[in-house]
């Protein structure tokens, strides 16, 4: 027996880098085009595709800044739609929050303030994430806001992208904009004539392959012999199983792929392996596919609490 005890491995570290995947290229490409052409679109993708991450990444790339010597510049303004319905005030508040500290003021003043501020900050593209949560009051306010920006004295045409999560073949908002009311007809008219409703698809097997290649690079410091590419086919098959792809798109979402890979890598790492094997992947996939609704009973106390407990004085 050796006198030197084996040093335990440090905990597995998950790297949550933003990967410029094929989906992101498609999705961000659409947003960029809308921004450039000042066009209006409803952009749908499956939940977990990476829409919000793509929007956040583009926001950082858009080089918004605050500068007392010059001004504040926010060409690409992205918000998340207010939850639980609410009035136009909720959407207005979401817009205001983007600018930083805004003292309280009556809503009728804030409406005008938003238009002035957006114009001064040089807003060129408005993106509303989770747009499936928008209600009629929100949509009417969006139209009012963009109309006021387009009118004198600002005369600023802005792009509008309503990014929604969809399920099946139904694209949210499409039905609303088909209604005969004047407001919706006006809204519909403002949408891009060529591609008003866009559906951005998930990853093909080939695209999954290139993502796995990226994961190999990212996690090689923790699993030196990592060779994920050879598992592309089974991984893609698992991810397009009816449980994870209920709409039968035969495409894999980034969320499922990331969960499967990182869970399998963690499992292998904790077992002291330097590569992931078929068994670790299979067990993880099984958890995700077959036992995803299983209820875990937590009855025992964890063996070692890693959080220091301090008495509150």
């Amino acid at each position, binding site marked *: 027996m050796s006198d030197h005890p084996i040093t335990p491995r440090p905990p597995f570290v998950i790297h949550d880098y933003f990967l410029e995947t094929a989906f992101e290229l498609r999705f961000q490409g659409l947003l960029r085009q809308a921004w450039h052409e000042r066009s209006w679109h409803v952009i749908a993708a499956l939940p977990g595709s990476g829409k919000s991450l793509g929007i956040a990444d583009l*926001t*950082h790339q*858009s*080089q*918004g*800044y*605050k*500068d*007392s*010597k010059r*001004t*504040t510049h*926010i060409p690409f303004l992205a918000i998340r739609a207010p939850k639980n319905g609410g009035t136009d005030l909720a959407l207005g508040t979401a817009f205001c*929050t983007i*600018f*930083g*500290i*805004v*003292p309280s*003021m009556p809503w009728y003043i804030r409406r005008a*303030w938003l238009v*002035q*501020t957006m114009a*001064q*900050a040089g807003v060129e593209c408005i993106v509303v994430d989770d747009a499936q949560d928008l209600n009629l009051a929100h949509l009417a306010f969006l139209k009012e806001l963009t109309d006021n920006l387009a009118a004198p004295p600002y005369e600023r045409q802005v792009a509008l992208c309503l990014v929604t999560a969809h399920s099946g073949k139904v694209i949210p908002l499409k039905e609303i904009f088909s209604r005969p009311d004047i407001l919706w007809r006006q809204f519909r008219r403002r949408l891009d004539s060529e591609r008003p409703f866009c559906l951005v698809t998930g990853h093909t097997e080939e695209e999954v392959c290139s993502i796995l290649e990226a994961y190999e690079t990212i996690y090689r410091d923790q699993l030196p012999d990592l060779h994920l590419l050879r598992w592309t086919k089974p991984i893609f098959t698992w991810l397009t199983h009816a449980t994870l792809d209920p709409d039968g798109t035969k495409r894999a979402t980034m969320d499922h792929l990331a969960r499967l890979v990182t869970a399998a890598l963690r499992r292998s790492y904790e077992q002291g392996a330097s590569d992931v094997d078929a068994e670790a992947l299979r067990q993880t996939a099984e958890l995700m596919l077959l036992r995803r609704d299983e209820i875990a009973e937590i009855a025992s106390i964890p063996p070692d609490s890693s959080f220091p407990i301090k008495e509150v004085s």
Partner: protein
Amino acid sequence: MAQIAFSDPTWRTTFPFLVEPLTDEWLVGLLLRCDEINHWESGTTLTYICRKNEKTANSSWTFIAPPGFPFDELAASLAIPNEVLVATTYQAELARIYGVADPHSLLLQASFSFRLCPACVAEERLLTRTLALPHMTICPQHRIELVTTCLCGATLRPFHKQTPPFRCFKCGLDWAKLPKIQADQTRSQIEAQLLSYYQFFWTYGTPDVLESALQLVYDSVVEKGEIRAPLSDRLSWPESSGRSYRRTSSLGYIVHLLWQLDLAPGDILVYAGPLPWRSMKWLTFQCSEPCCPYVAMIKKRRHILKEDLQEK
């Protein structure tokens, strides 16, 4: 100030549009410019900053040396250093001159009425700190009379709800459009002199210098044998409660006396030395010693002051 990127956490804790103080800008002007650039009604920034701090929420400010003013809150909201903001008031200078940590505006003047230079407002939306100085009625830069009332007759107020910044609360006239009346030459010269006294105190002011100034004033009055202005027999120092300020100890009053008695800033500095014969005026003192150390010191101090003034 460096640019704030969208990813910077400071973005969320700052106003939508940022301003930083211009040269010698007064806090009131900075607050108004912040309101204007952010498209807010006059006084919105001030109200927001004071509401954040419950202690100061109900205070009224004179903005000359506002004790307890939430400078740190405003500095954080504008992403500028705290000391840059403090420099938009006379707080630091008055604290040094009077040797108190939290000086009251009464140390500068007993009463205050808001006035402005329409030319400064027209050019840069600027309200300078000199607007807060007592006896100043002319803009030192433009040589025009400072304005206290609007063309409509309303007294100008720095902040008024539901009024855009830099505008009359009654008729809405932009302060930049107020009449620019050329100042009287004689009055300009007087105010230039008054300003030099203030400048002297901002640069060299300490409790000792202030005491010397009062002593000099006292001795001058005794020497001339006439009292042209009420004068306290001793300096009345402020108490911590801030209620014992006397008009006669305010800087504005002392400056006025110095001007009345035709005493130059150099006289004060010379008088501030550790002379054993303090009650005698240095100008009339003749020492019998061939190499008097005090005369040498006085000469040296005068020389330093002269050089200093020339540099400025």
